[in-house]
């Protein structure tokens, strides 16, 4: 299962230890993202979509904890088990192999630094040597062959860990390096279709509109050409017209950057517009995953069916799912959807259905399709 995928999540269990009780946020989530595809992760508020994405980067906020499960990343022919990696190695993955964009871009940008500083930071974290090289070349071209600046850069390339280098770096103004970074930042901003990149680079987050800020965050995420981009409801708080712009941009960028995208949303419309495959989540489980055409055409899981039916259609009666989303402190036993399900059977109340492949590439967790084996 892991061979053809870029990222594979297996049986992930995450719990939040709050004062009110233990929230069983993820209850054995299975997910895989293939290279180059857009996987839509759809579900209602609190179903664990975001927690899943934060788990992949090991960024589950306290009081949350990953209890069980494996997360594999296939990179450069190697398979990495993210959960067992040391902290430093995970940091190398964050932003470089897997980058992330968020629901409220302005809140996810630090209010006291300019756009340029924040994008530049990502560049200098993962592509420092590349820029040092560029800066040295630029200095050589300018004829400053033996300047202090150049020597500092060379030391930073060769002995980045030595104390002397660090002290020298502190005292050097690193003008050329910053100029190189600035060039790249402007280039990145231009690639996300920001009209006036030079000006925007110097702006603070609060000066940007929502759409502009989201573009800046996308530029930041793409700065190291990640293998995978996690997009956590990136257009939810944007207006429809701006959402359409961002969706177009994401489509374009996929063509140029060839990253896979894990696109998290609660909007089935966006899923239908953008994604190749869909995974549906309910109350901490992935209940169904399939090709987008197949899922919309022939959904198998009762929840998916009900969800698709609850999309309002003009001239028709509104169809709703009875009951409410269960609390994840003491969630229902067995299948978590059973008390709202019209096909509820005895077994559903007792045993949690397995997530199995019913047709080719179509997975369901439901006792109706033999999930109890």
């Amino acid at each position, binding site marked *: 299962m892991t061979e053809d995928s870029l990222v594979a999540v297996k049986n992930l269990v995450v719990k939040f230890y709050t004062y009110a009780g233990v929230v069983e946020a993820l209850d054995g989530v299975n997910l895989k993202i293939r290279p180059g595809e857009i996987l839509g992760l759809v579900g209602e508020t609190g179903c664990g979509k975001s927690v899943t994405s934060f788990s992949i980067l090991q960024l589950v906020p306290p009081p949350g904890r990953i209890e069980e499960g494996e997360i594999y990343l296939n990179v450069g022919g190697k398979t990495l088990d993210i959960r067992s990696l040391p902290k430093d190695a995970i940091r190398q993955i964050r932003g470089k192999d897997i980058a992330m964009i968020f629901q409220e871009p302005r809140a996810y940008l630090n209010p006291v630094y300019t756009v340029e500083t924040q994008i530049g930071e990502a560049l200098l974290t993962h592509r420092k040597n590349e820029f040092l090289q560029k800066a040295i070349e630029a200095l050589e071209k300018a004829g400053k062959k033996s300047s202090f600046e150049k020597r500092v850069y060379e030391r930073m390339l060769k002995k980045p860990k030595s104390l002397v280098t660090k002290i020298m770096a502190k005292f050097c103004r690193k003008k050329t390096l910053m100029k190189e970074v600035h060039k790249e930042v402007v280039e990145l901003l231009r690639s996300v279709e920001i009209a006036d990149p030079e000006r925007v680079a110097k702006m603070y987050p609060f000066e940007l509109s929502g759409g502009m800020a989201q573009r800046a965050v996308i530029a930041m995420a793409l700065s190291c050409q990640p293998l995978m981009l996690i997009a956590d409801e990136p257009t939810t708080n944007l207006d429809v017209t701006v959402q359409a712009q961002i969706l*177009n941009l994401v489509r374009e960028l996929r063509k140029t950057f060839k990253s896979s995208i894990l696109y998290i949303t609660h909007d089935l419309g966006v899923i239908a*517009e953008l994604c190749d495959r869909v995974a549906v989540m309910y109350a901490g489980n992935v209940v169904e995953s399939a090709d987008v055409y197949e899922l919309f055409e022939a959904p198998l899981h009762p929840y998916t069916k009900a*969800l698709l039916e609850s999309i*309002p259609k003009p001239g028709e009666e509104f169809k709703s799912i009875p009951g409410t989303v269960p609390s994840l402190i003491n969630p229902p036993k067995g299948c978590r959807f059973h008390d709202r399900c019209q096909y509820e059977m005895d077994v559903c109340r007792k045993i949690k259905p397995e997530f199995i492949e019913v047709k080719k590439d179509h997975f369901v967790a439901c006792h109706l399709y033999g999930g109890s084996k």
Partner: protein
Amino acid sequence: MSSIITIRNLKKHYPIFGGVFKRRVASVKAVDGVSLNIFKGETFGLVGESGCGKTTLGKTILRLLKPDAGNIFFDVPESIINEVIELERTNPKSKRLKLLRSQYDIATFSGERLLRLRRRMQIVYQDPTTSLDPRMLVKDIVAEPLVAQGIAKGEEARKLVVDILKKVGLGEQHLYRFPHEFSGGQRQRIAIARALVCRPEFVVLDEPTSSVDVSVRAQLLNLFKDLQKELNLTYMFISHDLSIVECISDRVAIMYLGKINELAPTYKIFKNPMHPYSQALIASVPIPDPKKRKERAPLTGEVPSPVNPPAGCRFHPRCPLVMDVCRKEEPQLFEVEKDHYVACFAVAKR
């Protein structure tokens, strides 16, 4: 059909203070000259992107905000409305106009008279977590309008409360609980019960479903429809979600930067949007069917600030059909076909 709400040229500007002495330096023109009427018993959809002033418009009609200019008539005979409009045009300083306005125009009301109006028009807010007082029990929350307006109290109020709670799908067992003990959908039902307990005729629904989940949303929408039939309500349904508005409203107005761009019966506006903004807006809505996937050129740019809206037609900097006249003059709403109003020079030229 007679209208229950008629507003004429309504304006609401929020001041911005600045400078050394905190003087008014500018204003956010949230609602800037809106005229419309809402018919008895209909659901009037108000659509627009964030910051276009749709919520402000709703709250100003309810007089939760004081308008800066314009008239608001609530259940006033048409002859009087016409007389006021005529007088305002011909003789704006006449005593008769003053008298009529102080008697009928709720834009001028205050104090006791406004209070009496409160039981006839109500509002349901977007987010029930913030619109229900966290330190009050459900019974007190729902009974509040009754007690505050002296309609009923004690046992009598309790009966009315239970009655309305049952109507919104809750029951007596929920009386002695705090709002935070409920799920989002149930909380919104409590808010609806509060709005309806004094049996209003007109209710503003301010994005009532945007804070609840898709699976619960339909339950609420059905509840709105049922209650409308049962209690003879008129709704003003404010939303940014066009797919819901399309399903629930009888007529729809599309707002952009404090102005109404297009107003028409729902089927007309969604089948045949005329204003370039309406066209772009409707085209931008993602369709939940992968087979209908299509490449489309989205609208460029973003909504300008309502502090300094563009001169002329406010949409002109983003409009694909922009002409010279759009930059200078403001287009007025006119009837293109029966009941279909558009404010656009390009449409007018056609």
